[in-house]
């Protein structure tokens, strides 16, 4: 990039072509006050605090929108400009309600900090006191329009970084205000509650119910970590005070996986389920009662040793939730397969793993999960096929990426889903096959795409083509209940695109049919760029560490332990739920007449109520650990808060029980 030279406050400074005057000032350590400017979003010059004087300009101009040019002579700080800045602050303070003693964000407010800096100890202008609404409808966020300075940061963040563009300005002039969609209450709008607007709001106009009045950022410790809730693995910065999580922010919204979603940002702060703080053991009256951890571990070890001796190693099965960390899962695997010596180990989402891996193996017998591509590919794609997935709900950051690609990169978005989907606004074509006809629908689409594309191709392509020689697009479209024209148009989009990506999730995986996954892979091969090897496809896995659990071999690739416990003569079950909240209804195996059940969990649930012994598990924020993202990157989380003394890391508990079992 070309270097340019400017004169700022009498000194020669360097900048780059394409910089704004503000960029050059910031790069050269010249401190200009800003309110509407924010890293990662475009500049609009709304607040006018960064006004500077530039030679040959008749008036002061905002530095954030003025392109830097070679030879500009600029004054950033003089009596006149500082007077203007204070005047702007006074106008902002009197326009709406900016009385700090009434505000939840006092102490964490950029407007307030600037007023302090400019020693604004009074406001000369009359207050206008507009009667503006407070919108508390959303589960997590509140918009208090009385605190808004109309800087538009939230709007540009919602549009440019998150991509959903729920927020915008409504009305004109004096009545201007931030609105959601066509002036809907936030809770009824297209808002995905990602909280990015809350993070960028310079005042108390957008605040979070989960963080309000818990503590000021300056009083908090800031800890960098990674969210492990859904497997996207977003970077987080946690604010902690007195061993309590006060707030979770993104360290950099504009960076990769920096957006965060409502789950990562808010649900960790106020968990609704009751924690297990002490071990519970079922007494002689059949009731679970608190017990010291060491005693509970001893009892569990004794009973497991007894069962092992009486019925053999394979009478004990271990099932883990893929929400647990790699460390917990590794210790669990060792405990079940080595200490107990049982072959029966599985994950709760094991059936989904088997569906995916069998589908992948039918496509290519040596292929593994790592043929999947990375989430970032979504932002490079010009055509996205979403099959049976609702990422805005299940993996909101993936959903936001898809919307960003559709809106900003003009990527074509094709949805195949019989069910309702939150991409309604952004979808180019929505193919709705009849329930149960998903497999045929995919094959018909595959055939239509093959027909559109070039006839030349690899052996694999030819193999796929020959397997579909009997499929007829017109007939097939009638059978699956999709207009043939829609199918053909989707096929056209897929075959014309230069960089496709296919994303599938729950809707496909619930069918437990590996064939669907093979079809999707075949489609990815047909439309993929032959030079780049792997097909571009991602499966949205159900739990935060599904990929980790599966990569570590906790789920058997061919046989479901989960389903066949009674067949295998299992007498005892060791269930590691960790901080996953699981209901008994999700675990039919709990009802199958087990002699002995140990559940290791952070939360009380209908599943723990089936146990003979309940052992407490820490939540992820209480231990640092490694987790694999759904596209296979191993990330480390940090310990954010301490657990109570009675709660030990999962691995520690397995170690303790193992010691007892080996002694016997």
């Amino acid at each position: 990039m070309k270097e340019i030279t400017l004169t700022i406050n009498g000194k020669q400074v360097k900048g780059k072509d394409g910089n704004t005057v503000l960029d050059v000032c910031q790069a050269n350590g010249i401190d200009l006050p800003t309110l509407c400017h924010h890293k990662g979003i475009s500049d609009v010059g709304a607040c006018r605090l960064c006004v500077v004087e530039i030679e040959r300009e008749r008036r002061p101009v905002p530095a954030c929108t003025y392109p830097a040019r070679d030879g500009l002579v600029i004054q950033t700080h003089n009596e006149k400009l500082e007077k203007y800045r204070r005047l702007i602050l006074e106008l902002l303070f009197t326009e709406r309600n900016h009385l700090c003693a009434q505000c939840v964000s006092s102490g964490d407010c950029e407007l307030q900090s600037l007023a302090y800096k400019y020693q604004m100890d009074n406001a000369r202008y009359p207050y206008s006191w507009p009667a503006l609404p407070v919108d508390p409808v959303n589960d997590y966020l509140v918009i208090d329009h009385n605190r808004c300075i109309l800087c538009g940061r939230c709007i540009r963040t919602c549009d440019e970084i998150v991509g959903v563009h729920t927020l915008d300005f409504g009305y004109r002039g004096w009545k201007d205000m931030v609105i959601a969609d066509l002036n809907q209450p936030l809770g009824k709008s297209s808002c995905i509650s990602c909280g990015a607007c809350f993070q960028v709001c310079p005042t108390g106009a957008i605040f979070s119910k989960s963080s309000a009045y818990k503590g000021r950022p300056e009083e908090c410790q800031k800890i960098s970590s990674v969210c492990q809730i859904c497997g996207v693995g977003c970077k987080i910065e946690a604010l902690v005070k007195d061993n309590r999580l006060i707030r979770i922010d993104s360290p950099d919204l504009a960076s990769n996986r920096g957006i965060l979603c409502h789950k990562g940002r808010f649900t960790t702060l106020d968990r609704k389920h009751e924690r297990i703080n002490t071990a519970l053991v079922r007494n002689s009256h059949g009731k679970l009662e608190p017990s010291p951890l060491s005693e509970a571990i001893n009892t569990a070890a004794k009973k497991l040793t007894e069962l092992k001796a009486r019925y053999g190693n394979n009478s004990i099965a271990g099932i883990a939730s893929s929400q647990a960390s790699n460390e917990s899962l590794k210790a669990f695997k060792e405990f079940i397969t080595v200490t107990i010596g049982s072959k029966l180990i599985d994950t709760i989402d094991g059936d989904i793993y088997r569906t995916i891996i069998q589908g992948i193996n039918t496509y290519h017998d040596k292929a593994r999960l790592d043929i999947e591509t990375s989430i970032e590919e979504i932002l490079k794609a010009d055509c996205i096929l979403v099959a049976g997935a609702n990422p805005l709900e299940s993996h909101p950051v993936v959903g936001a990426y898809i919307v960003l690609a559709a809106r900003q990169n003009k990527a074509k978005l094709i949805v195949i889903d019989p069910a309702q989907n939150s991409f309604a606004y952004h979808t180019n074509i929505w193919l709705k096959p009849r329930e149960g006809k998903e497999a045929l629908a995919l094959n018909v689409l595959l055939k239509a795409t093959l027909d559109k594309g070039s006839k030349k191709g690899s052996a694999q392509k030819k193999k796929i083509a020959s397997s579909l020689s009997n499929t007829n697009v017109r007939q097939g479209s009638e059978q699956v209940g999709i207009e043939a024209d829609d199918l053909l148009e989707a096929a056209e989009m897929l075959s014309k695109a230069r960089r496709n990506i296919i994303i599938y999730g729950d809707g496909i995986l619930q069918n437990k049919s590996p064939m669907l996954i093979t079809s999707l892979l075949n489609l990815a091969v047909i439309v993929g760029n032959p030079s780049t090897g792997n097909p571009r496809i991602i499966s949205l896995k159900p739990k935060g560490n599904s990929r980790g659990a599966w990569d570590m071999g906790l789920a058997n690739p061919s046989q479901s332990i989960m389903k066949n416990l009674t067949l295998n003569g299992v007498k005892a079950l060791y269930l590691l739920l960790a901080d996953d909240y699981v209901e008994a209804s999700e675990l039919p195996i709990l009802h199958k007449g087990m002699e002995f059940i140990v559940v290791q969990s952070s939360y009380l649930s209908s599943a723990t109520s089936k146990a003979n012994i309940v052992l407490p598990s820490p939540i992820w924020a209480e231990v640092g650990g490694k987790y694999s993202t759904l596209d296979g990157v191993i990330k480390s989380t940090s310990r954010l808060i301490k657990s109570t003394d009675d709660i030990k890391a999962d691995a520690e508990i397995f170690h303790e029980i193992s010691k007892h079992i080996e002694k016997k």
Partner: protein
Amino acid sequence: MAKVKVATVWLEGCSGCHMSFLDIDEAIIDLAKVVEFTRSPITDIKEFVPVDVGIVEGSVGNTEEEEVLKELRAHCKTLMAWGDCACFGGVCAMRSTFDKEEVLRRGYIETESTDKGKIPCPPGVPALLDQVKPANHVVKVDCYVPGCPPEPKAILYALNELLAGRIPVLPSDMMRFD
């Protein structure tokens, strides 16, 4: 040397600023050697006499407060505002977004514990103004110590500046609005 005469008034506020002033601890002993408090909630003297420094805590929300503030201004050479209410309107100004009649109705008739309530009206009590104002929207104010309440050290700093013959402006690190 004659003592510097000071008068203070407590308008629509919580007295927190006066409390914060009393919180300057032992510094009050030295201050008392050079300053004489005339009319003030601290001395409980009600009559105004001409003074060097007038100090106002609280915002202006009714006709009486307006009158007292104007009288203070007329009796002092320099007027200093203490606290967010006097500087900006403060917590008292919360009512300003609402209609005055609505505020009175909510306060005197619709309160959950009120039975057959009646809105008190002048001349028995001073009339509410339409909106709550900071002191400088009613009279000329010469200097300000914002804060809710201001830190004792900020109050002391401002008083010492005045005693040294300067009009105080709080440095940024003493500024606070809460």
